[in-house]
């Protein structure tokens, strides 16, 4: 059996799904954040695969942008998490419920 585009796509979809469930089910914000990264990585994998099989470079170039954006997102996100931890001393999502009326 030849390794084709659909193999990469299925890996990508599974990776995306794993990340998605991680975001949904985990309570630790740091782990939730890692799962979000997994989802982004899943997209880049599909992108590179498409780029390779389509024969257009644009997809791979897009990966550069995605990686940059992801890094910036992580930096800002972790800054928020740290600032919040200083105030509330927790990173558990279910304990962050001051905004409920």
């Amino acid at each position, binding site marked *: *059996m030849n*390794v*084709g*585009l*659909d*193999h990469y*796509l*299925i*890996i990508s*979809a*599974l*990776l995306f*799904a*794993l*990340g*998605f*469930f991680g975001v*949904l*089910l985990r*309570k*630790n914000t*740091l*782990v939730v*954040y*890692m*799962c979000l*990264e*997994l989802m982004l*990585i899943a997209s*880049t994998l599909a992108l*590179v695969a498409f*780029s*390779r*099989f*389509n*024969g257009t*470079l*644009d997809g*791979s*170039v897009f*990966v*550069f*942008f995605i*990686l*940059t954006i*992801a*890094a*910036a997102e*992580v*930096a*800002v996100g*972790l*800054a*928020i998490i*740290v*600032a919040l931890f200083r105030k509330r001393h*927790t*990173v*558990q999502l*279910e304990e962050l419920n001051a905004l409920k009326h």
Partner: protein
Amino acid sequence: MFHLLFYTFTFLTLASALLVVVSRDAVNAAMFLLLSLVGVAGLFVMLDAALLAFVLLLVYAGAVVALFLFIIMLLDTRPGAQKPFQKLTMAAAGLGGALLLLGVGSLHARAQLPAAEEGLAVPSLKAYAQQLFTTYLLPVQVVGFMLLIAMLGVIVLSKRFETAEGGA
């Protein structure tokens, strides 16, 4: 050989990703994230995108995961008491899972995928550069601004201010 490598990287990627999701300790999760990234980088190499694999490892392993680990250590969080999931969450997750499996299934069955074009040259660094600085120059500029505001944001969110008038 090719197949063996492919399945090894696939296994590495997916298994570590699963472990990220289920591991109770955030440090372990970060380490598994790193492993998963290595797997993806391997797959990149198999897709003739060695440069991207390199960048991925550089950015993610070098910066992102290191940052994660640093923060985890800094915050010194206790592993959260693993509460049983709420029924509603479980139901939603189950439904989502079924939909996703259906999606993956139909992806396999129904998607008309283009066949690989043979004899494509491995894109050079120059090709990437050419694209980035001609066609995609505007997004590059925008990303520059994005990095600037991200940096400013991190400063604003973290720096101590002594007086009301203090600027960052």
